[in-house]
């Protein structure tokens, strides 16, 4: 197609380029707005300019000196990190067994695990809280960590992955007299490094961002995670938006850093979650 058509085509390509660029910049704009507000003094917060006239670090220093924010951050790192490591360990074990070992009732057990896929926290939170309280896990790290470890999503993804590993590998190891544990530990785990790192990023992100469960299970401020901290900070100082935005920026920063460095892994683990 040449002649008059080609310039028309070029115009439509430029229009497409511009509309995509503008739309995506608008989508990310509120996050940029948060960052800019975090550096603004209180009287500039509602100034619509994105660049602070008198940029200040005072908001951040307030958050870290007047509030035990370092403690909240360490709490969250500990809780989200532990959940991620333990969950990946358990899920890879289960995923390997469901994919590569034969045992009575395998399909039935897997189906019942898969059925819990669609159970989400807000729906079962009342009985879950009552149960966890019975187990003595209110207001301690166990209550924050243990119930959050178990989900069918990770098992499902890892099983899919192990199904793709050729069976000959395991047969050969068995002939060599390897135990199932050493097959899992020495063959399967090293092979699954890419998917495990993708899931690790995803799990850490989800648990860093988790709010409802920590809110329900902790009243002791020493145990607060960052999301609970900023939400209650917000209800105490509802007008101190410059402090709230600075705290929000601090809370969002690790997730944005993870996003910039591990975008490919994140996108991969979301893609594989789409059932085919």
């Amino acid at each position, binding site marked *: 197609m040449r002649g008059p058509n080609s310039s028309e085509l070029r115009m439509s390509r430029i229009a497409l380029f511009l509309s995509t660029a503008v739309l995506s910049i608008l989508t990310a704009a509120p*996050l940029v707005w948060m960052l800019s507000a975090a550096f603004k003094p209180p009287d500039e917060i509602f100034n*619509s300019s994105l660049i602070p006239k008198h940029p200040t670090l005072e908001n951040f220093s307030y958050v870290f000196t007047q509030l035990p924010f370092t403690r909240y951050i360490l709490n969250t790192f500990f809780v989200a990190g532990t959940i991620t490591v333990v969950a990946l360990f358990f899920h890879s074990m289960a995923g390997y067994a469901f994919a590569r070992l034969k045992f009575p009732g395998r399909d039935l057990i897997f189906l019942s695990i898969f059925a819990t896929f*669609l159970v989400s926290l807000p729906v079962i939170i009342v009985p879950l809280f009552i149960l966890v309280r019975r187990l003595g896990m209110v207001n301690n790290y166990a209550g924050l960590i243990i119930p959050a470890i178990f989900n*069918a999503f990770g098992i499902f993804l890892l099983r899919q992955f192990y199904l793709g590993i050729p069976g*000959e590998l395991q047969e050969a190891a068995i002939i060599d007299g390897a135990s199932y544990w050493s097959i899992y530990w020495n063959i399967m785990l090293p092979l699954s490094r890419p998917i495990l790192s993708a899931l690790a990023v995803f799990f850490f992100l989800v648990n860093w961002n988790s709010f409802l469960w920590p809110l329900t299970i902790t009243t002791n401020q020493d145990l607060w995670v960052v999301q609970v901290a900023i939400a209650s900070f917000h209800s105490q100082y509802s007008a101190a938006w410059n402090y709230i935005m600075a705290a929000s920026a601090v809370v969002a920063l690790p997730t944005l850093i993870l996003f910039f460095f591990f975008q490919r892994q994140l996108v991969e683990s979301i893609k594989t979650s789409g059932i085919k």
Partner: protein
Amino acid sequence: MTDPPRTSLGNSVRNTDGSKGIRGPRRKALSERRARAFWTHSRKESIAAFLFILPDSIGLLIFVAVPMLLSLSLGFFSVDGFGGYKFVGLANYNRMFHDVLFLKSLWVTILYVLILVPGLYVSGLGLALLVRQKIPFIGVWRSLFFMPYVVSLVVIGLIWQVMLIDRIGFINQMLELVHLPSRSWLGDPSLALGAILFVTIWFLMGYYMIIFLSGLQEIPREYYEAARIDGASAWAMFTKITLPLLQPTSFFVLLVSTVSAVSGSQAFDLVYVMTKGGPANSTALAVFYIYQQAFQFNNYGYAAAMASSLVIVLMAITIALFMATRGGRFHLT
């Protein structure tokens, strides 16, 4: 993923299995030995497998399955803040049907689901079609669309609350700039749910964009090339090729977005931060009202009774979609 090389050992197994040359009693002994080896092998395998799945199975049983069953039975009890139980029969369920606020919260949930699910479908698919084009810096644009999804909903809720503040908020200032009336987005009962829905779609559309993108990548390019040669319009290609072949992805998206909308996976955090259910209960979704009843008023039994109605709705949706897709097969053809 690359295929690991076949080991010579793997092949030698094949050879012993295929040995047909041996006859008579030796053959019988061999087959018995093999049967015994197989039996101990498979028993060992079963025991190993059970140990492998044990931690996750116990965890899922205690923290997912038992609460699920409890949610269906707890509604028959009155539970106080200290864990004392009293059987009350159908009292909680009776109360539920006469609780105006609960019925209102169901209505808010229905509205929320009916707008959110199509909204996410259209925005997710639309963005996927947009960023599938070959345009300069496409990776950057994709990242920007996806970026809100990595930030926590609490932070998202706080950002939007400041931006939507009456009169002096960023959004209202922008509206006044183009001579549109400024509004009380989170203070007006007729607007607040819309604001929550807008923020939810803005937050989630990048996620569904990625799901749709991977679905679109599965459609062979030749189909489009053939259609183009036949002179098909872009719209015809979309309705005759893209949509039908995208069916598995569409089912997945509809299922996941419906379930997460009904169970308030995103809505809870946003409502908690932005509106606390107000104004005039216009954003009090069922999950939020249930949470308030349980954790603000200590009506655990009543909250469980209301939650069990949601569990039944979710189960019905899942079963219906499961049957429509013939047991989870998302391919219709």
